């Protein structure tokens, strides 16, 4: 009975769907988080009678007989639409309005990318992410600064104590990808480039469609709670439907078993 296994693939697919939805909902307050969606594809088809084959009467079979064997996931992809900006008032918070990512240096020397602009200053005065990874190119702030300004195009300037003029101390850069959906999610709001994402294209904010920076704001996740809840309901019902099909197949098999008493 193929139906048993076919429905089982349906149940497994819905389970994966729920896993992804649960993760979206879990991150409903994670700054810079981008929601994921699962895409499904139908599995192999078993051809019992090929369309166009010669029928017993000599004519051509118009449609043939094919039975599909279920469903499989075709991949999860992240949706990089803009999230809403939330004002935080903190000098070191930056939100990206546009397609770019901030570049960070990982402890192993590799480069990762993030949309989470919750920055802070470490003991050496460097701008770092919430996990302490330094922003690239590095920006070091003087200890005697009074104010900190990050302009939309990434210029970081400070006013030192006793001074009236602002002084530029660094330049934040952004990176964009041809296909951000192809990035590898590392967790901790970080992404790594892959062959599918395309080469990183670095530049200053405001150039090349990279987007601009908004100081004292953070990007909220693009998770729509209502939408996710609706998807959760449909997932649950689809799961139930598939389990009913398994039940039907099981009862039919039971019937077949009862033929011989």
């Amino acid at each position, binding site marked *: *009975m*193929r*139906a*048993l296994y*076919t*429905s089982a*693939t*349906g149940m497994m*697919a*819905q389970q994966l769907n729920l896993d992804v939805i649960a993760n979206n909902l879990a991150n409903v307050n994670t700054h810079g988080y981008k929601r994921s*969606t699962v*895409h*499904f*594809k*139908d*599995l192999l*088809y078993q*051809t*019992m009678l090929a*369309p*166009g084959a010669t029928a017993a009467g000599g004519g051509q079979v*118009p*449609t*043939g*007989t094919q*039975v*599909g064997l*279920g469903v499989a996931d*075709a*991949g999860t*992809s992240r*949706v990089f*639409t803009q999230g809403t900006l939330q004002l935080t008032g903190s000098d070191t918070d930056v939100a990206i309005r546009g*397609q770019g990512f901030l570049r960070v240096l990982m402890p192993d020397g590799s480069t990762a990318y993030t949309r989470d602009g919750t920055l802070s200053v470490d003991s050496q005065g460097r701008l770092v992410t919430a996990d302490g990874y330094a922003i690239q190119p590095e920006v070091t702030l003087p200890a005697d600064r009074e104010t900190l300004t990050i302009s939309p195009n990434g210029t970081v300037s400070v006013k030192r104590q006793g001074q009236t003029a602002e002084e530029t101390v660094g330049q934040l850069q952004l990176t*964009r990808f*041809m*296909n951000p*959906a*192809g990035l590898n999610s590392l967790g901790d709001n970080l992404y790594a480039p892959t*062959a*599918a*994402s*395309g*080469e990183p*294209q670095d530049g200053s904010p405001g150039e090349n*469609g990279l987007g601009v920076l908004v100081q004292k704001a953070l990007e909220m996740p693009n998770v729509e709670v209502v939408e996710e809840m609706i998807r959760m309901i449909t*997932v649950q*019902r*689809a799961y139930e*439907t*598939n389990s*009913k*099909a398994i039940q*039907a*197949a099981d009862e*039919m098999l039971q*019937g*077949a078993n*009862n*033929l011989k008493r």
Partner: protein
Amino acid sequence: MVRGIHTAASGMTAQQAMLDTLANNLANADTIGYKQDLSTFRSLRDLALRRYERGDRGHGAPVGALSTGASFDSAAPDLAPGTLTRTGEPLDAAIVGDGLFCVQTPNGERYTRAGHFELTPAPAKAGAAPAAFLTDTQGNRLLGARGAIDVGAARTVTIEPSGAVVADGRTLDTLRVVKAPASALRHEGSNLLASSALVTPALPTLRPGYVERSNVGVVGSMVRMITVQRAYEAAQRTVTAQDETLGKLVNEAGRF
């Protein structure tokens, strides 16, 4: 009598194949662009029965026809539209009305209603300009009127309602949308359909930012599942009844 057992069993086998198809439809109830398979039964060949009397073997008086049961006949995709849902993604597009997107696969041109596309960069070649193609989730390139659509290093790529692919404000190509009769289409897996007949070009009317959900009618499928189950049960009872009669013949007829 022995013939009857096989006739009833053919009914059970046919209903089982029907359930397999229904299960596949339900498993794909959440697969975008999936078209449910509609299946039909076919009655098996009729046998002409003749009454044989002594001496006229092979040309006795005809007494009528006897069907030898049913078999699962065909499963062809039902091209009825599915509901459209908004995703807001610039590379998603749903076809309004008839039509199928064309993609290039290693086995030739294939057709799909699954309108979720991605930008897949082609492997970089030394000295060549960067290339990226619109593809489906499997990496099959989406076809335009002039073949696969290379968007180069474009920053923004959008699909217009007219099917035009616009990269950085420049129209590159128009998506190739075709029509094919449902009876000529067959599922190939991975959201692809193959056509055994020639396809005719169609004018695309798209809804960008939307995808088409599968057209599996869950209620209808559940109801058909119940009828399948009951028909199976009835065929099974017939087998049991035939068996009981046969049992009587074998065990009791000899005693008289």
